[in-house]
């Protein structure tokens, strides 16, 4: 139960920070996706069932707010979650490296998915411009922020597990 509360609160807090602050902080035209980072961190450090539940809830919430059609944000976050689960088994001895891999691959996949959806919806864009001005700056921001996010979620996860064990 405590895991659910901690995970839910962390996502709620992150949603507020993301919409109010992070989305307004640009590097060129790119922005960091703190929710994606949280999804990556919880998928690797949290309990699978708890993380799965809250990532789905948050994904649906973001999909409702977002103008993207066909629940694209939810799909992106679930793919990142699955990627995190796979990486967790593969490089579990170096979790920070796993976080970097999930962040890198997750950001690239998310952007490709969004661009694919936008292309289907008839929006035109120039690939090199999008890559240089949006994707690469977003990737850099996500990679930079992945370090503190991973440390924070790791600390939260350890403390939650300790309290639950004591109870």
């Amino acid at each position, binding site marked *: 139960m405590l895991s659910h509360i901690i995970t839910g609160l962390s996502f709620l807090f992150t949603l507020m920070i993301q919409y*109010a602050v992070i*989305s307004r902080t640009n590097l060129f035209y790119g922005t960091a*996706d703190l929710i994606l980072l949280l999804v990556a961190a919880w998928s690797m450090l949290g309990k699978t069932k708890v993380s799965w539940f809250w990532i789905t809830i948050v994904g649906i919430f973001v999909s409702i707010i*977002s*103008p*993207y059609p066909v629940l694209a944000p939810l799909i992106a976050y679930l793919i990142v979650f699955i990627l995190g689960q796979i990486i967790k088994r593969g490089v579990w001895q170096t979790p920070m490296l796993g976080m970097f891999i999930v962040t890198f691959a997750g950001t690239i996949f998310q952007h490709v998915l969004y661009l694919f959806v*936008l292309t289907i919806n008839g929006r035109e864009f120039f690939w090199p411009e*999008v890559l240089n*001005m*949006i994707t690469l700056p977003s990737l850099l921001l996500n990679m930079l922020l992945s370090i503190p996010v991973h440390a924070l979620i790791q600390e939260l996860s350890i403390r939650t597990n300790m309290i639950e064990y004591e109870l």
Partner: protein
Amino acid sequence: MDSKKNQMKNIFNKISIQSIVIGLIVIGLIVLSISGFLTPLFNVGLNPLISSQSWLSVRFLSFKEFFTSPKDMATLRERNAQLENEVSQLQSQIIQLQENLSEAQILYALLDFARTNPQHEYVAATVIGREISPFLQYVIIDKGSSHGIRYGMPVVTQQGLVGRVDAVLGNASRIQLITDASSIVNVRLQSAKVEAQIVGSLTGEVSLEMVPQDVSVEAGDVILTSGLGGNYPPNVFVGQVVSIQKLENALFQTGNVQAIVDFTTLNAVLVITNFQSVDITPLIP
């Protein structure tokens, strides 16, 4: 009895003589000291005393300072911390007041815009969020259907056109900015008196399109909404032409536009509530 009287007289005489002598000596010394004749004598006698007194005094003060200064330092530090605390509190108050002033200035500007454009009815709203995806240019405001906001209503600031309402919830709405890639606004070039379109992009830049080849357009030309299409009211300030590209083999001229609204610092907007957008999609062949 006589002998006793004689003894008393002798004593009295002795005292009187002694008193008179002492009195004379004292008066003489006073007169001599006032007249300055005793100064060298005093100097000889007092200088060593003064020197030793000053030496002792200096040492005592140093000694006292040595023991009392830490106490003063502690008091001063305490006072300094107290003052620093007061300064930080005052600074935070100044920041708060500056924020209030900034907010008030924005609201006054919006109010001024509303007064100068009385043909419309407005609902003022605060921008509370921005779309997560960097590919889309949308903002979220704190007013929704319960405040009379409906889909398609135009959104402006005191500077000019912002966008239109794209989705509405009870107490919040999503606004599509004119910089969004799927946004197309029918505009009019004020100086050239010709109609064109401005189109957004994934990076948030705005370009001018559909400008006929035979029209002379220059950098700095003012762009206003034309009202065509029924999505936006006419004569709302949109921006200025930055540059124009005229290719001989192209059907239309294109250009770059500087939007008048700074979308990166968008804090408050006005939703025009008495403008109903017209959906002409069924009429498009």
